[in-house]
């Protein structure tokens, strides 16, 4: 059970960085 929680937190962390990349892409596109 604890393993599932830890892996879910890890996956959430990685997912949040992917979302940040998407947000940054929008910022970069706006600057063109």
């Amino acid at each position: 059970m604890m393993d599932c929680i830890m892996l879910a937190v890890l996956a959430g962390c990685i997912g949040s960085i992917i979302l940040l990349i998407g947000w940054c892409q929008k910022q970069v596109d706006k600057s063109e």
Partner: protein
Amino acid sequence: MLQIALTILIYLILVIPAGVYVYHIAAGKHTFADPVFNRVDGAIYKVCGVNPKNGMNWKKYAVSLVITNGIMILLGYIILRIQSIGLFNPNGIGAMEESLSFNTIISFMTNTNLQHYSGESGLSNLSQMLVITFMMFVSAASGYAACIAFIRGLAGRTKDNVGNFFVDLVRITTRVLLPFSIIGGLLLVWQGVPQNFSGNVVVDTIEGTKQVIAMGPVAALEIIKHLGTNGGGFLGANSATPIENPTIISNLIELYSMMLLPGACVITFGKMVRDRKRDLAAAVVADGAAAAIPQIEGRESLTARIFGREGRSIFAAMGILFLIGLGVCFWAESQGNPALAEVGLAQSMGSMEGKEVRFGIAQSAMFTTTTTSFTTGTVNNMHDTLTPLGGMIPLLHMMLNVVFGGKGVGLMNMITYAILAVFICGLMIGRTPEYLGKKIEGREMKLAALCIIIHPLLILTFSALAVATPDGLAGITNPGYHGLSQVLYEFASSAANNGSGFEGLADNTLFWNITTGLVMFFGRYLPIVLQLAIAGSLMKKRFVSESAGTLHTDTMSFAVILVFVVYIFAALTFFPVLALGPVAEHLTLWA
């Protein structure tokens, strides 16, 4: 003092050829070792299905980095959880606990190497090799790759190609980390560092007691630990133990190993920016004038030739910050500890509590300042027993996170500060700021400001959480001013991906494992993504010609401005907590 000066002088001599070599690797230029490494790299590309000619834009590069690192994190977590199997486990070590596995795997993938366990009792040899040593290579190569992509973006030789992440990852591993590690590892074996697959050895001491001496592939881990600015030791006491760091020569090998590549990255930056300026000049001037360009560069000073003009000002700013910190740390430790003097211990050698006699004050202060400036995190003395001001320097340098910094990311952080510096100077003289021939506008400043604010936000928010909750307070073993310093140090070390600690903190608990794990993760990947986005934004912009009002960023005066900007920002964000921690402790101790 003389040995510190000599140590730095030798470093300056060593970093130049290393910088030239790394520049050739980063720029894809021919090197003497190409006939061998081209075949090795080609085989790896073929097996992995990588086309080295395919470039990536900043977004694809960042996604490749994060996904690759993410997959390794998940696989590494599983290995730590099943390490109790008999494979390469001569000491019969059991599976690592869940929250500790979470902390450890993030720690090593983010180049932090914060260890809430003791290597000799917490990891099997399989984990030491397959997780720890492997990740020391990959995390270092990932940081370097991000830095090179960032430089390519700033140098802006194309509109939308910062390189190929997988190619950069392979090239830095096969051409820099592996060959340097083999040479350095053999030198450490020569100095007496063990390299075997034996179980621990139990010996009878001359006092008639039993002592367990740890064995294993120590030298292989030890060299990449420093070369990749990783810092996690094979043993709990790290490079303070004579097994990991037996002699003054091994100490110097480890010291130079961790200083070499971050310095080389700055030289790479300077040379790559100079290449771009040459291209631009050759493109815009008439044929006759173009022929004069090499003659103009022939009059460059020696330092400008070695570092590149832009690299020189960045290296100078980092050097000034480093030398100020080193001076304060050495002076503070040389003064001794009045509390120890009161109980009758002579302080003529300085404050030797927690230090190795074979290294003394000078090499301990040098190692302490270096390991936290270059964000390695290896220690040859116990930082928790440094004097208050001596301990404030490593803490401050991790808070700054720009004093050379880890392999690649320190340079990226310093360039982010350079963008902030030109923005502030632009405000003062009423001009649109420019850096490396590109206008710095609202979007870049928004990303740069976010990038700079993340670091103190992580440190201060989580420190506040720790001192406001029972679970956080439970870890503090030294209540009072030093207790706050312990908490600050733990989170500063995590956010800066350093990994050293004030080890008096009882940190192997669910609270500390999870919180420091999150700080390490976001302290690593948030800035890298934002910095790659800044590079992606700048490389789309047109170059602007220099005019009389352009702020020159390749001068010593800009280096001094940069130092002041870094210190002012640090003072505004961290001075209150430093006053409550190490400064208050110092005033109490010497009252």
